[in-house]
């Protein structure tokens, strides 16, 4: 990624080759040698069978007293090829498990206080079942995933998100979801458990990184078919080669034919394919995203439309007061003063920003005697302060206008003009009224996150359409959309509107990704092709989506898309590389194979390899070694650079296509030079 935007959570460094992971992977390389494991991967199965055959031929030669050194060397190299492929898969699995285990470790050995008929009993966290009620108080761990049904608490979720600031979780809101392994810092809450032991999202995610139970994703299946097809074709080419060489008068040795076959079939991608798939899940986990299926991650790469919530994604969460607009006949000072008084006791960021703005303009006042602060409620849709005979309110224009009329005041037309102007500028107008007189408007502006504009430009180049979802009125929405550079916006959006929009885009053949947290987001999350639910959100939302973001970070959607694309790119790049390798391998092995029959064919030995034996061995060694060499690439993934598909293709073709043609020529030649002295 170019220029990591500041709001992005810094990727956690996880070493690919830590000793512990290596140990596990090495163990897995051998435990995966069972035929059942091998049969899951047709390409490697051919190598596996080839190894058994060459081993048999080695032993047969040994018994009959024929030379067996070459046969043994090929056998060992083929075995090594199989082991390397197993190792790659094992390493990816081990990483994923380690990642998941660190997430899970927190909640093991946690005791839970289960409520049964109003009485508490202490049970182990792992014994909890769905729908159990548990009590958690300050200082205690939350034993399992659940939803707060009673109370409110601040929760330290740093164990899973790495974010140290505590978050507020409250029953009955869109922030009622809690995760096992996090810690309650204050208050007491009652949680309804939503997933029993072994069925939490985390457990499902762990299943996705375990080779044995892992389901292949659709694209992986398609690619497997392609690779199996290529394997069959090359099997055919090599099997028929035997009668051909008999005709030519110099029958090829079975061991060399098997070596040729293994070199030609796409073992590089075939051996790394499972690891690539698992590593995709690993990367999601690393980004603190729990995917419910591998398919979800893969689909993310295909997404055409991103529905992004304005707040938190495009703008920083809070709006700030930026300007006072007094009505005619009112001084700016008077308006600022009234606004200041109404906000002194207002704890919201908006309130605080009004105070700050007023003070900036040199207006200040102490809190009046006996002031009664009136909080914002959903019913009144305004807040303010009462002291003495003065009553100041601030709120949406329409609401304040109604209040003015109630109080016998009048609404002058200029108000509408000012409100519109403020809206058009992308700000939210907050109208201030003192008693029955409307003083003016405070502009609350959205602050576009730094770097987001560039990010959207990138997305645009990648061919993704961005849609901003906001509850703002269309004028404000349009202004912000323009400033942020999103392609389109949905203003005054209701959950139904979102749903409608998703369906429309899907009708046009597009794939839609969205993020959501509230219960009323659930249908849209389920409808979207990629539905990323925030971990802080309600259980309904988390169930409906196909991914959960533990960080509850609204920009995560972009990262998900990149992980999905990176997964597909890695597969494509290594497939291209693997296929391109065949050219050099042919030039190494074919002359070696045929030179006895037709000595003239030695002119095809363009690499000037030392002898037929050294040529075959060099090719097989290259074929085996390239797998571990590419493991880091397979696990980290080919980095996705946001650019147009055409540009991306040229770049990757150059690196992996041309590289795939050239690298083996050089490597096989070097290997030949290295092993020649060993053989003499």
């Amino acid at each position: 990624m170019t220029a990591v935007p500041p709001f992005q959570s810094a990727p956690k460094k996880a070493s690919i080759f830590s000793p512990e992971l290596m140990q596990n992977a090495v163990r897995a390389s051998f435990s995966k040698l069972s035929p059942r494991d091998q049969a899951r991967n047709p390409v490697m199965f051919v190598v596996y069978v080839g190894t058994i055959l060459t081993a048999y031929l080695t032993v047969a030669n040994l018994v009959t007293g024929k030379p067996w050194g070459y046969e043994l060397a090929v056998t060992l190299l083929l075995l090594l090829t199989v082991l390397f492929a197993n190792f790659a898969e094992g390493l990816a699995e081990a990483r994923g498990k380690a990642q998941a285990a660190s997430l899970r470790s927190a909640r093991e050995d946690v005791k839970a206080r289960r409520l049964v008929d109003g009485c508490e009993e202490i049970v182990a966290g792992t014994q909890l079942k769905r729908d159990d009620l548990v009590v958690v108080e300050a200082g205690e761990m939350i034993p399992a995933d659940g939803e707060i049904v009673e109370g409110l608490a601040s929760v330290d979720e740093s164990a899973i998100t790495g974010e140290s600031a505590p978050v507020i979780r409250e029953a009955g809101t869109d922030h009622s979801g809690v995760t096992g392994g996090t810690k309650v810092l204050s208050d007491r809450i009652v949680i309804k458990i939503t997933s029993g032991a072994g069925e939490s999202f985390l457990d499902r995610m762990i299943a996705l990184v375990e080779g044995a139970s892992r389901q292949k994703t659709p694209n992986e299946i398609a690619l497997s078919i392609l690779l199996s097809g290529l394997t069959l074709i090359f099997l055919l080419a090599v099997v028929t080669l035997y009668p051909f060489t008999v005709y030519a008068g110099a029958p090829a040795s079975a061991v060399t034919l098997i070596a040729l076959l293994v070199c030609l079939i796409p073992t590089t991608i075939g051996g790394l394919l499972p690891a690539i798939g698992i590593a995709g899940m690993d990367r999601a986990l690393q980004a603190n995203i729990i995917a419910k299926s591998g398919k979800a991650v893969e689909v993310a790469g295909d997404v055409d439309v991103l529905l992004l919530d304005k707040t938190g994604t495009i703008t920083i969460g809070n709006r700030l007061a930026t300007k006072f607009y007094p009505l005619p006949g009112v001084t700016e000072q008077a308006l600022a003063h009234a606004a200041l008084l109404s906000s002194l006791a207002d704890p919201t960021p908006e309130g605080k920003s009004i105070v700050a703005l007023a003070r900036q303009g040199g207006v200040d006042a102490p809190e009046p005697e006996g002031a009664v602060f009136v909080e914002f409620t959903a019913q009144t849709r305004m807040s303010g302060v009462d002291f003495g005979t003065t009553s100041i309110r601030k709120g949406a224009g329409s609401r304040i206008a109604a209040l003015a009329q109630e109080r016998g005041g009048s609404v002058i037309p200029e108000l509408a003009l000012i409100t519109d102007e403020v809206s058009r500028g992308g700000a939210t107008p907050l109208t201030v009224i003192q008693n029955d007189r409307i003083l003016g408007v405070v502009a609350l502006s959205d602050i576009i996150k730094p770097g987001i504009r560039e990010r959207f430009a990138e997305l645009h180049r990648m061919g993704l359409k961005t849609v901003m979802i906001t509850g703002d009125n269309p004028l404000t929405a349009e202004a912000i959309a323009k400033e942020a550079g999103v392609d389109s916006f949905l203003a005054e959006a209701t959950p139904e509107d979102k749903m409608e929009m998703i369906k429309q885009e899907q009708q046009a053949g597009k794939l839609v990704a969205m993020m959501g947290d509230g219960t009323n987001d659930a249908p849209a999350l389920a409808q979207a092709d990629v539905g990323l639910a925030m971990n802080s959100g309600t259980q309904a939302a988390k169930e409906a989506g196909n991914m959960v973001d533990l960080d509850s970070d609204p920009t995560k959607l972009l990262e998900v898309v990149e992980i999905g694309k990176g997964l597909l790119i890695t597969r494509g790049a290594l497939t291209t590389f693997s296929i391109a390798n065949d050219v050099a391998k042919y030039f190494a092995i074919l002359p070696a194979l045929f030179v006895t029959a037709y000595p003239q064919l030695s002119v095809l030995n363009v690499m000037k390899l030392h002898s037929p034996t050294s040529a075959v061995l060099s090719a097989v060694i290259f074929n085996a070694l390239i797998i571990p060499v590419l493991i880091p690439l397979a696990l980290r993934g080919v980095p996705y650079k946001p650019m147009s598909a055409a540009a991306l293709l040229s770049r990757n073709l150059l690196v992996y296509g041309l590289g795939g043609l050239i690298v083996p020529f050089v490597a096989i030649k070097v290997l030949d030079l290295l092993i020649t002295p060993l053989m003499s």
Partner: protein
Amino acid sequence: MSAAFLQFALLLAIMTALVVPVGNWLYTVFAGERHTAPERLTYALIGINADERMGWQRYGLVMVMSNLVMLLLAYLLIRLQGLLPWNPAGLSSQSPDLAWNTVVSFLTNTNWQAYSGEQSLSYFSQMAVITTFMFTSAATGFAGAAAFMRGLAGKNGADLGNFWVDFTRIIYRVFLPICFVLALVFVWQGMPQTLNPYATATTLEGATQTIALGPVASLESIKHIGTNGGGFFSMNAAHPFENPTPLTNALHILSMLLLPSSLTYAFGRLISNTRQGWVIFGGMLVMFVGFLLTLYSFEQAGNPILSKLGAEQTISATQAGGNMEGKEVRFGIAQTALFATTTTAATTGSVDSMHDSYTGMGGFVPMLQMMLNNVFGGKGVGFINFVQYLILSVFIAGLMVGRTPEFLGKKIEAREIKLVMLAVLAHPLSILGFTALAVALPEPLKSLNNSGPHGFSEILYAYTSGTANNGSAFAGLSANTPFYNLTIGLAMLVGRYLTLLPMLAVAGLLASKRRVPLSSGTLPTDTLLFGALSVFIILIVGALTFLPALTLGPVADHLQMVYP
């Protein structure tokens, strides 16, 4: 040398210039709504509903059924030749295995000829069976291509068109008019068109020369327009009656390329993206030119073994030089190379020289082109094969841009890949499988005319030609034996139907999918880069499979010639 390049450039320029007008014409044939009066009459006569819309299964079924009936009718006619009219030479019927081979060969548009025309077929059989099949098998191929293209372009998997309509229109609107005019030009240039019996001449030296004649021109025009390739005479288009002048040779070449090259443009029109059509055309042309120059340079360089004996093979003012064994003086190396490249690119299979007598690498080119079977290709099949590789390229390259691969807005998923791989696999399975069988058995090897790598090439060429539905031969192989008649017949069927039917299914599946709108994140398939990539994939996947066999055949053969 420069004269050769001038000829290449001229003919390829004419071909390219014809792509747009002929492509537009084909487009109206495939997409036009009106049925002409003769067509309506035809539909009424054979009792079909021209407005029936066929899905891929139905289209495939009707195609196979109509082909099957034609196969049986033709077999009957050939076996009963002795009882039928227009048989002035009194030729008897072919044996059952030869008749099977012959009818399958012409049914599949292969036009492999295990028989010698002037020695084996009556004028009636040449017209009623061979000429008819040249129309119908080519029309079947083009109809298949039309359905395939509709599938790629369409939105409705249940509507790949109507086989009968496509079949009839191609014959009425394309083949018959062109062939009639072309045949007259051919006669003007010296090609016979007569039902008179064989003529008897007394040569200047007093010997008797019996001259085989017949309705040659009418067969020759459809032979090349329909990329069929079966000759009227044994030596095919090398025979002066089939190819009297360099002009007829040039017209043969252009006829073979005319429809396959224009099909790319018609496709572009059908999918409303002519750029895509040009990219396919460009990919084909680049491979064609590469193969042409390879073939030309090896043949023009001549045979060093003969040079050592004192045969002069260098170009001079008074002779064209080159490896002239099995070639005709009027064509020289340049036109011969162009013809050979064309006939194996467009899977025609007619020859104006004996490929068996080429240098090793000269013979390598025709073989490789047939193995690829998508450099222009004949009667729509080459186009379908090219698209097959485009889909593979899209799949591999599409992954590299980080999206589920899409071709023409349709996602390429497991089912399509499965069918594409089946079609890709069919080719080597038939070519390598049958060749291995033939070289492993003692009996088939007795048919060889050459030994060593060249003998191997003869067998490899035979099955390659059969599978690619080409029909040309390393003619030294005595292929009229029960073994070859049977196995080459099977290879022809595999090559034809195991390509056509799976790809028709792919088209049907793709048509049923929802179209994904284009964006800058979509892999563009109508660019130079993508064209180059697909050529790369064709050469790697298509050619590498055959490289071991080619090394043991033509490559070893050539090296033995250079380093005896």
